[in-house]
């Protein structure tokens, strides 16, 4: 298998639970203990109530395509050689919108509103990146 050439997550104390969760097959998002506001990527404080006490919870990983685009010019390593590739905004059932890629279907079949679910892409033995595929 060819080496994964695209950017890998830069793991830090703030986002570690998300990437470790992905390796365990869970799509972890940050939740504010003060007001329940959800965030991904995680933030040092809640952007709703500014509280700094946060927890991590597993999302259903289910949602719909909110919008999507197709890069025909690539600027990042790995992606540069795979144009055209897609980037999508997925609106999760919990209401949170996240940026990801759609896999498992040709681009001409992607539609806004299409139901999708998280799919855990084991890109290296150490790293798993959550992406989304059509939900049946």
């Amino acid at each position, binding site marked *: 298998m060819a080496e994964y050439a695209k950017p890998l997550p830069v793991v830090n104390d*703030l986002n570690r639970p998300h990437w470790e969760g992905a390796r365990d097959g869970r799509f972890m998002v940050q939740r504010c203990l003060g007001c329940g506001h959800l965030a991904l990527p995680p933030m040092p404080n809640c952007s709703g109530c500014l509280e700094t006490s946060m927890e991590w919870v597993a999302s259903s990983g289910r949602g719909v395509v909110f*919008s999507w685009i*197709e890069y025909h010019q690539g600027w*990042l390593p790995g992606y540069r050689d795979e144009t055209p*590739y897609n*980037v999508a905004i997925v609106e999760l059932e919990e209401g949170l919108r996240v940026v990801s*890629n759609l896999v498992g279907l040709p681009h001409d079949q992607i539609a806004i509103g299409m139901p999708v679910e998280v799919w855990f892409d084991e890109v290296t033995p150490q790293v798993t990146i959550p992406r989304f595929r059509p939900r049946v």
Partner: protein
Amino acid sequence: MAVRDLLDRACIAGVGATPQGQWPEYSADDLAIWAFREALKDSGLRKAAIDGVFVQPSFGGQGDLKTLGHRLGMEPRVAANVDFHGQALQFATLLVHQGLCNYVACMYATNQRTNRNRFASTAYHLGGNFDDVYGLSNPGSVAAFNYRRRMHDFGATEEQLGAIAVAQARAASLNPLAVYRSPLTIEDYLNARYVIAPLRLMDFCMISDGGFCVIVTTPERARDLPKTPVFISGLGSQACFLELEHPDAMYHPPQRPNASMLWENCDYAPEDIEALYVQDAYTPNVLAALENYGFCEFGTAHEWVQGGRIELGGELPVNVHGGQNRMTYMLGWQNTHDAVLQLRHEAMEPARQLPDPEVIMATYSTGLWQETWSYIFRR
């Protein structure tokens, strides 16, 4: 004090521009000084009269008061770096109205084309490198997500979007300051490659070198100066940092409250506006502005711009300087400059002079649609 108290209390007494394009022999600081000198000449003011200076630093670090300051050789009462043109104009308006300054020079210059700035930065300000992991690396993505959504929500087509680039190319062909003056047909537009579909090459701003300067003063002081003053007769501003969390994230969230502030606090309505300038880092910005500021119904701008309506001679000429894909990419500074020239009947080429305009509107917003400003300029 109310917003209305600011109307007609500040005016533009002079503007200056360098040639635009690629100027490898000039630094951004050189270009800022050049534009400032042009604006001083235009206004009839001496440098020593300027007691307020706002500088927008260019991407890459130059054109910053830290480097530019000692070259100006001035002792202004107020001097600050600002982030955006709309902000500089707003602060200058307040300063001259309140009497803190008499003449405020606002300037921006860049040599980012020579420096080969790439703007391959994040699209949303996402923490960590979540954008990079998913290949989201160009700020134009925000407008591309928007137009895809518009296609879904309102049945917009890719060809309809092309009307903006075609109109602006026609305008640029008449503008001596424009970097690209070749004509563009809808076929050319559709045959150009996608950059980030559904957006094509001509939907993206260029990268260019150049500088602009605007001098703001009070109407009383402007009366003693050679050029016809251009009044600030309406202003609005709004920021929104909710990004994807905003329910209307796809339709330029801060613009609607900005529009309310503008229209509720001035004596004009959209039908009074004779020409509109939009900061168009990406062509869908034009559609957002037309809808959010009330020139057409929400969800219809892609139809509204068809048939020459936004061209010179049309119902509402938009970006008659040629826009940031054809004229120059100067973060909106070119909007104020061209509006002033038009209102003073100094549009350089008779073919591009609007017929005796009195009221022109300009809007400014960042590529990521977080901060917005709008102004009504009146002769």
